[in-house]
């Protein structure tokens, strides 16, 4: 597998063999190890010493279903610690097929913006791109596809990344060539902008270079894994029908749907923004309720939201965006939420951090809850570069400080997700302790609660469950597996088949414990980086209000104290 190093100061690109210390790693495994070992932890995240590392998963580019995730890593300008953010779409599969283990972008351009182009043989070049300064992602991608052809996958930033805003995302094109998938969390779009890279354009018309050590075993295990995904009701029925929006009803019914800036756990008008309502609306307008968004996906949780005239607005309208832009703001009009989703993708900002920041502003009285026009105007201001736009684009902490408001639901600057920690005590542990900041994808326990394995409102078993979930999530992020498909590991045949694919790919004989040990190694290196960067256990804490403000309807606070949470990574 190749490593492509791009020196943006010298405009020099070197292509070589991946060093032996990194062999067998991919995705988050590779980005986190490299960031910890090659980046000065005390550096300015938007300075020349930081590195932006783009890595497909170790199974990306193979024939295995649902392995097209791409990991992007750096020191985060949002959290001040290590960050891996991943995106769906096509990029992970394309890079994997080309035999590219990672792209490492180093130093900074002194003469503006560039496109990093990788041709069908995997050969990279830098192309000046100052003409694209300030261009939003949809126009940018359309222009690039017109120039280079439709058989290209693109990672790109919008104006927010060029402005260096801490909520800036890196957008990724989906199967239809739209920049609607996002490596949203952690401000990595700002890191990409600081390097002077506007877009990475990768030709996917070439032949595959992925080597599988035991191809027949890999094929057989892949079929078993695909069957396990299809047989699980979550991935085989619920997600294709409703997408992740199908979670609005269940989480609301548990009393754990944080809304109105996390002042309530159930939302009065939740049905107006539910997955069922979304599916009905899309069907009536002849949009797509199920849609192939990512390469080799057999779940098809994506959707295409269209307006009243049937014209495309955005894809995919996800649970977390509906929550952030709807639940947290009190906006219950799906057309407005879809518009906000599109705006965020176009300007290149994290929908979650941005929605939560708007919720903070509403809670502080800057505008009323539910004021759709105000929300749209605020997001537009990010692109306009106004003072309020910059504050919003830098996330909820900045908004809270600006408005002198204390109820700001973040950890390490990153907003919580659509599961209130007071209604899911184990998710409180994940939000607080993940090296990534408040991150539901780092270790979400909702499945354990709904399966009756753990009580979400009690303290027993939560720290251990969060630890195990965080370890397991490294596996998905390292291999490029979609975490929704990873639900198949909850059934024995799915777990067995997935392990077989890893061993068949690399010719290894790992047990599941061996794999988990490697995942722990990644977590250790991430924690090590964060400590070197100056983060302490005091940063592994939820804001005070989660411990003091009971959340209706259960009227619980976060019960697990900091010292208990500190034991989570006593490996």
């Amino acid at each position, binding site marked *: 597998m190749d490593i492509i190093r791009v020196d943006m100061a010298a405009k020099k690109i070197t292509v070589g063999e991946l060093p032996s210390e990194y062999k067998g790693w991919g995705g988050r495994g590779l980005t986190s190890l490299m960031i910890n070992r090659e980046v000065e932890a005390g550096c300015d995240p938007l300075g020349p010493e930081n590195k932006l590392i783009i890595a497909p998963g170790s199974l990306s580019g193979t024939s295995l279903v649902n392995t097209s995730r791409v990991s992007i890593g750096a020191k985060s300008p949002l959290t001040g610690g290590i960050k891996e953010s991943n995106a769906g779409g096509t990029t992970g599969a394309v890079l994997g097929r080309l035999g590219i283990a990672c792209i490492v972008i180093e130093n900074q351009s002194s003469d503006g913006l560039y496109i990093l182009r990788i041709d069908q043989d995997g050969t990279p070049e830098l192309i000046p791109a100052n003409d694209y300064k300030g261009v939003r992602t949809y126009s940018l991608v359309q222009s690039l596809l017109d120039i280079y052809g439709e058989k290209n996958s693109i990672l790109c930033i919008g104006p927010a990344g060029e402005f260096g805003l801490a909520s800036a995302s890196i957008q990724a094109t989906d199967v239809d060539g739209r920049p609607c998938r996002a490596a949203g969390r952690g401000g990595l779009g700002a890191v990409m902008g600081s390097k002077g890279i506007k877009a990475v354009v990768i030709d996917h018309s070439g032949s595959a270079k992925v080597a599988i050590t035991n191809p027949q075993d890999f094929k057989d295990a892949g079929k078993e894994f695909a069957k396990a995904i299809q047989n699980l009701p979550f991935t085989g029925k619920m997600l294709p029908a409703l997408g992740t929006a199908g979670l609005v009803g269940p989480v609301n019914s548990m009393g754990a749907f944080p809304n109105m800036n996390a002042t309530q756990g159930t939302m009065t008008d939740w049905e107006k923004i539910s997955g069922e309502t979304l599916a009905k609306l899309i069907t009536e307008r002849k949009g797509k309720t199920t849609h192939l968004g990512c390469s080799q996906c057999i779940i098809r949780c994506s959707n295409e939201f269209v307006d009243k005239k049937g014209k495309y607005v955005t894809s995919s309208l996800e649970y977390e965006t509906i929550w952030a832009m709807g639940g947290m703001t009190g906006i219950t009009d799906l057309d407005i939420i879809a518009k906000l989703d599109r705006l965020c993708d176009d300007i290149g900002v994290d929908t979650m951090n941005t929605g939560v920041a708007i919720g903070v502003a509403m809670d502080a009285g800057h505008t009323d809850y539910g004021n759709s026009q105000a929300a749209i105007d605020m997001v537009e201001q990010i692109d306009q570069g106004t003072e309020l736009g910059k504050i919003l684009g830098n996330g909820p902490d900045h908004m809270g400080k600006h408005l002198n408001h204390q109820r700001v639901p973040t950890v390490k600057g990153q907003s919580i997700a659509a599961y209130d920690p007071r209604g899911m005590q184990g998710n409180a542990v994940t939000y607080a302790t993940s090296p990534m900041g408040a991150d539901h994808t780092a270790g979400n326990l909702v499945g354990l609660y709904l*399966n009756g394995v753990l009580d979400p409102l009690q303290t027993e078993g939560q720290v251990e469950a969060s630890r195990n979930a965080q370890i397991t999530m490294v596996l998905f992020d390292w291999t490029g597996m979609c975490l929704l498909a990873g639900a198949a590991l909850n059934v024995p045949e799915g777990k067995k088949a997935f392990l077989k694919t890893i061993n068949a790919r690399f010719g290894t004989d790992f047990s599941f414990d061996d794999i988990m040990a490697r995942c722990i190694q990644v977590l250790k290196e991430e924690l090590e980086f964060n400590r070197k960067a100056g983060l302490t256990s005091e940063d592994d804490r939820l804001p005070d209000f989660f411990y003091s403000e009971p959340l209706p309807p259960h009227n619980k606070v976060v019960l697990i104290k900091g010292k208990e949470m500190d034991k989570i990574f006593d490996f």
Partner: protein
Amino acid sequence: MEVIIKFLGPLGENFSGVDLSEKMILNLPKDAKVNDIFNHFKIPMDKEYVVIIKNKIANPLDFLTDGVTATVFQTAYGG
């Protein structure tokens, strides 16, 4: 007793008597349990099915009470 049932998601499709668009009122015996909801609609019990009553996850052998609302859906693992 009367129990109000609301199905979420596609669980319940292909089973007669299930109206996915509206809440349904079931008349059940006084000593009915949560799993009797599935028995009523002849939906085979599956550990992937969840019933929420008063914002808490109910066990299949929990007794139902008159007038309660039960929300029924398939387990989700994240999103």
